[in-house]
């Protein structure tokens, strides 16, 4: 390993990403992750802490519910007029001296970045943490063009050095603890030095490594949290100051932004600037919030002299076409839904096979990539509703999950045995006579109600940990019919003896 801090660190090659497609998809990846006690411990601790902090930060705001409603309304109105808002944004950015590019997919977006880097004669770009660029594997695409993208967010840097995938929208290395990070740094950017597990020591090592890059690399790449159509202003919310460095020091800045990040008016920021920090990091005020509008014409030059805004589709117009599913595009990437999710907080982010994990990932990934590419993700939820309760823009994730399950069943297909069982039981429930006959058969361990136990992977996965209840000798309706007619008139009878267990 190289001890010098000047050249790009040897970052490990990443293993292939967990595959969200195929019928084994999420359940198999989750099963493996659940056995990782270090991961369970790290995640459990982190999500419990942030959950409690967020609840407190939200409780302080008396009009939180009105803010949520306002956020949802602004996003819904924006989606309903998206083409118009994007054209307004293009006009304002152009007026302010920026250059707007429209990219259908990752290849087109990466080509813009590569062209800017080449024109500035650099084979390195520095990056602000950005989900849109991770979604399109921008770093790998640039690598193929001989350009090295340097992540400057601490957690992104950790994952890049470790050759690891992100496991959280906001805290991409949430699955790592400090001791693991110290060992990683001692192998890479701080080779030859001995560090401690103290946060100050770890961030110091990262700062020493990154500072030189901020001062020397001429091109930066960022994402955008918001872009205001009326003024052409782009906003990045971050906590480390690395984003501020990237958006001010280099000569050229390329922002790659999903088209759904546009908001109509500057004044809409009032709502989101309150919702986002409290929901994501439980902070009252976001530590570093950068706004920029095109390029500055001041003398001497201050800030980037060249600004490119890449408007990325990459499946978003397809999501927009689904009237129920499109609310997934309202997401402001706060990650509150991940932190409160009982599934995410146990299996971690990598099992979702996407840069967007957790509940929002379960509705976004299948829609962005196509349902056949991630057919198990809509089932990666117990529909407990904690995500909807936490979402600052009121995305009704459980409803979208159920909607997408239906689309998967109808458009991609389901296991033949499952489909047959479901159709059979639906016929039983359609008739009182058939239903009562099936209840009698169930008592004998037969018939369509019993077949439900064969819904893949079936009854054996139930009895791995739980006993099955015995089917009682009398249904409720049989008891009801057997009651003496006077019972109701003369008063109650004691409840039946058996309880549920």
């Amino acid at each position, binding site marked *: 390993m190289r001890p010098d801090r000047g050249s790009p660190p040897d970052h490990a090659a990443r293993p292939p990403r967990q595959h969200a497609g195929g019928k084994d998809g999420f359940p198999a990846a989750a099963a493996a992750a659940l056995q990782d006690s270090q991961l369970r411990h790290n995640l459990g601790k982190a999500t419990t802490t942030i959950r409690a902090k967020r609840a407190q930060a939200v409780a302080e705001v008396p009009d939180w519910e009105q803010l949520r409603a306002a956020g949802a309304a602004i996003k819904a109105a924006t989606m309903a007029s998206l083409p118009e808002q994007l054209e307004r944004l293009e006009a304002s950015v152009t007026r302010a001296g920026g250059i707007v590019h429209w990219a259908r997919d990752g290849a087109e977006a990466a080509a813009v970045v590569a062209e800017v880097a080449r024109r500035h004669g650099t084979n390195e770009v520095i990056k602000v943490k950005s989900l849109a660029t991770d979604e399109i594997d921008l770093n790998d695409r640039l690598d193929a063009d001989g350009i090295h993208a340097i992540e400057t967010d601490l957690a992104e840097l950790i994952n890049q050095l470790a050759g690891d995938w992100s496991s959280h929208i906001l805290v991409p290395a949430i699955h790592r603890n400090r001791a693991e990070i110290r060992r990683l740094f001692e192998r890479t950017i701080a080779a030859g030095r001995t560090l401690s597990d103290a946060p100050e020591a770890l961030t110091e090592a990262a700062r020493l490594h990154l500072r030189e890059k901020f001062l020397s690399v001429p091109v930066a790449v960022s994402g955008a949290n918001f872009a205001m159509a009326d003024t052409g202003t782009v906003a990045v919310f971050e906590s480390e100051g690395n984003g501020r460095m990237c958006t001010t020091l280099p000569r050229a800045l390329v922002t790659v932004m999903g088209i759904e990040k546009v908001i109509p008016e500057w004044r809409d920021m009032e709502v989101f600037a309150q919702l986002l920090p409290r929901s994501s990091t439980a902070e009252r005020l976001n530590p570093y919030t950068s706004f920029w509008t095109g390029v500055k014409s001041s003398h001497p030059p201050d800030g980037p002299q060249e600004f490119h805004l890449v408007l990325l589709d990459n499946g978003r117009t397809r999501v927009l076409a689904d009237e129920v599913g499109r609310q997934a595009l309202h997401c402001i990437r706060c990650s509150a839904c991940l932190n409160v999710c009982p599934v995410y907080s146990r299996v971690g982010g990598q099992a979702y096979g996407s840069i967007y994990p957790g509940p929002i990932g379960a509705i976004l990934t299948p829609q962005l990539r196509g349902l056949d590419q991630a057919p198990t993700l809509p089932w990666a939820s117990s529909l407990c509703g904690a995500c909807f309760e936490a979402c600052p823009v009121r995305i009704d994730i459980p409803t979208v999950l159920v909607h997408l399950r239906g689309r998967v069943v109808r458009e991609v297909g389901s296991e033949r045995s499952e489909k047959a069982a479901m159709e059979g039981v639906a016929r039983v429930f359609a008739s009182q006579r058939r*239903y009562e006959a099936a209840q009698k058969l169930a008592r004998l361990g037969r018939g369509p109600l019993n077949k439900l136990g064969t819904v893949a992977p079936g009854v054996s996965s139930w009895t791995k940990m739980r006993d099955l209840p015995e089917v*009682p000798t009398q249904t409720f309706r049989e008891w009801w019919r057997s009651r003496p007619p006077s019972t109701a008139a003369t008063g109650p009878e004691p409840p039946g003896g058996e309880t*549920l267990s």
Partner: protein
Amino acid sequence: MPRAALFITCFNDTLFPGVGRSTVALLERLGVDVDFPEAQTCCGQMHSNSGYQLEAVPLARRFVRVFAAAEAIVCPSASCAGMVREAYPRLASFAGDDELAREAAEIIPRVYELTEYLVDVLGVDDVGASFPHRVTYHPTCHSLRALHVGDRPLRLLRAVRGIDLVELPEARECCGFGGTFAVKNADTSIAMLSDKLRHVLDTRAEVCTAADASCLMHIGGALRRGRSGTRTAHLAEILAAQE
């Protein structure tokens, strides 16, 4: 005399008839004239939540007709009551069925989860029950976050004679049942269940109770498998008890 039609749910009807018997005993003790429309089968929740909306729509149509005339529709299951209240309008819009939408809108204000009916309609906290056992209450996800029953179950439980009610740690977290989730994502479901069991056992309760027999089947099945000595009982069974 208040009249209520019992929406028993196919699950209780077939697997946990004691929940239905207790609900009837409880309501009649409180002076309610209970009716049981025998044409009822299933509300369609399993189909709807598993992606079989096409199969759920006829069940929703059947349900709204069976219960159309009821003064109040009372259900000892938060998730099935929630299905009717939350999902029927969406199913109607999915099917483009205006009549279903109209019929659903008409009955939805009369659909009550059991504790809602007791507290809001009958106006009672003390139902005259006696249950001298150590009990912990698990608020199921649908009672908490779909129906927003709030503290109604706890108010009812606190008034039970002889009960030793102990708070469940991390009570609001899902037990991991989730219908077909429990079989389709069995490993994750089990991981969630393990934590729920740990919290239940930490309370040293004899009985874990909840508003949904389905979640209790999941929790109770594991308590029994582990020979834990803790059992489950539906809220209705405790509120009907006069031990």
